[in-house]
């Protein structure tokens, strides 16, 4: 694997790290299986790309992409909390609806961003090679967001949100407004995903209507992979594990892309990726088992 491919994997891994943190908030913190992300990622990309092309500063456009994602999450949570639609179905409905919304936002299925200033452009004049700029800037963005989410989950509101996910009945008994907190949490989750989409469009050279396909699968894989590698006990480590899991996932894809010397072909990519992810997940467990038996022997 070349350095550029390695940095590219880190870059896309960091971007999907935001998705993983979002998925962690919905699936793990709130215990709310939310598939809206398949629609909110392209929504963020569509809003971000369209605004940048319209001349809005890229930073504002990226934040607007996040805001749009947050609104999409709010719709899902509202359908579920207020209208009593099963959470899974509510999120699928929003996801389907977003396909049309995204086409409306862009006015076409593909909004190119090649040769336009992005959030990464101002950093390109700092003397770094262009292949380093994007991952370094993304690392800064992801680190800042990670710390902010960590702070939030430790605040009074964040603790109430965690209580809502852990035991909603108990939380209500303590006077916590679980409905509101679910709406806030899912909005936050999809806001992060929408922002990831806006950044993705700027990395990738454009927003495309199909970019949401399978985002939830990749996000969940990153969360679970991160948990397998780190087995976190505190929130901040769990959040880092999400980003780490996402990067490891992307490195396995990059590795699978280089598996040609084993006689593997292009169509084997997803199979190879899946096998590598299984290996990455099983290895820490085996090591623990081995370490455990040694401890017993002692």
């Amino acid at each position, binding site marked *: 694997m070349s350095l*550029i*491919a390695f940095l*590219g994997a880190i870059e896309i891994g960091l971007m999907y790290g935001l998705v993983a943190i979002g998925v962690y908030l919905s699936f793990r913190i709130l215990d709310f299986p939310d598939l809206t992300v398949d629609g909110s990622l392209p929504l963020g990309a569509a809003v971000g790309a369209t605004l940048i092309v319209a001349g809005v500063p890229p930073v504002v456009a990226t934040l607007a992409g996040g805001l749009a994602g947050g609104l999409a999450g709010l719709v899902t949570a509202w359908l579920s909390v207020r209208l009593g639609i099963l959470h899974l179905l509510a999120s699928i409905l929003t996801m389907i609806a977003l396909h049309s919304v995204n086409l409306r936002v862009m006015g*076409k299925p*593909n909004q190119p961003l090649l040769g336009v200033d992005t959030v990464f452009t101002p950093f390109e004049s700092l003397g770094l090679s262009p292949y380093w700029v994007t991952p370094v800037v993304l690392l800064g963005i992801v680190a800042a967001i990670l710390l902010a989410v960590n702070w939030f989950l430790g605040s009074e509101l964040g603790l109430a949100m965690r209580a809502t996910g852990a035991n909603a009945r108990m939380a209500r008994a303590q006077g916590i407004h679980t409905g509101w907190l679910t709406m806030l949490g899912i909005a936050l989750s999809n806001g992060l995903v929408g922002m990831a989409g806006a950044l993705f469009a700027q990395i990738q050279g454009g927003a495309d209507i199909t970019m949401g396909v*399978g985002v939830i699968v990749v996000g969940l894989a990153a969360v679970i992979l991160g948990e397998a590698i780190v087995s976190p006990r505190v929130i901040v480590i769990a959040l880092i594990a999400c980003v780490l899991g996402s990067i*490891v996932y992307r490195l396995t894809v990059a590795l699978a892309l280089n598996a040609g010397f084993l006689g593997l072909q292009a169509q084997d990519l997803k199979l190879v990726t899946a096998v590598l992810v299984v290996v990455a997940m099983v290895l820490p467990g085996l090591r623990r088992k081995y370490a455990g038996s040694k401890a017993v022997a002692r």
Partner: protein
Amino acid sequence: MKKNTVRALAVILLAGLALGPGQALAEAKAVKITAIVEHPALDSVRKGVIDELAAQGFKDGDAIAVEFQSAQGDVGIAGQIAQKFVGDGPAVIVPISTPSAQAVAAAAKGRVPVVFSAVTDPVAAKLVPEWKKPGANITGVSDLTPLDKQLDVVKRMVPSLKNLGVPYNPGEANSVVLLNKLKDVAQPKGITIIGAAAPSSNDVLQAGRSLVGKVDAMFVTTDNTVVSALEALVKVGTEAKLPLFAADTASVDRGAVAAVGFDYYDIGRQTGAIVARVLKGEKPGDIPVEGVEKLQLHLNARTAKAMGIALPEDLAKQAAKVVE
């Protein structure tokens, strides 16, 4: 604490393993080909590129080393493939389809020669500023169909044509470009284009039925979703006596009445010729973007009868192929 160290080591090991192999053999010139998805049309393009290169003395495994990667429909993987290819430092990268071309252009940043193929509107996709002089390190072949000639054939075979129904996927960039161009071309001919949205191949039958009674004929562009479910439209056309026309010749074998079209294999040959010029030292920026050059008329006598129209004698004589 110790556990965490081991874990960190495991991750570093995995990263190291990933960085280890993959120093490309620098003997033969590397040609990297990628497509967004594996699909009969896109696969023919790739075959055409490789065949044309071989015909021009650049045989795979001999003078050049070809590597192919498919993004399997995943835009994230398309980006990673683009970065891998750029990192390998090849002589040329050949992205097939618009999303792959955009990902490669974003990763190459003008440093690696790029020859795209099967991109319908390279200017709208911001790959090149204009067709005649691309300028930067990128050029290629567009698969924009000759809509004008296609409409003329439809008009010849259905003289009473007023309204033409076009099932299409609003989520496909190429289809939306084609639909808009079709409207522009049809207006001066006194033909109204009526689109019917089919967001997935499962929706094509319903989209076709929605056109019955509203249109005099149906026309399918090079829309991947609709073409993959063409049989549904053949069914609608036969049931409602609504002739179905297509933009690619392969669809005529599957039941469309007629198509003035091109073979994606020929697009690949055309792309291969440009790749050969770049391998010989020309700059992509100096080579104009090419449109489809080789056109053929294919007719289907069997479905023409089933859909209630006659084949004009002179057209049948011009046709490269008539399916009986």
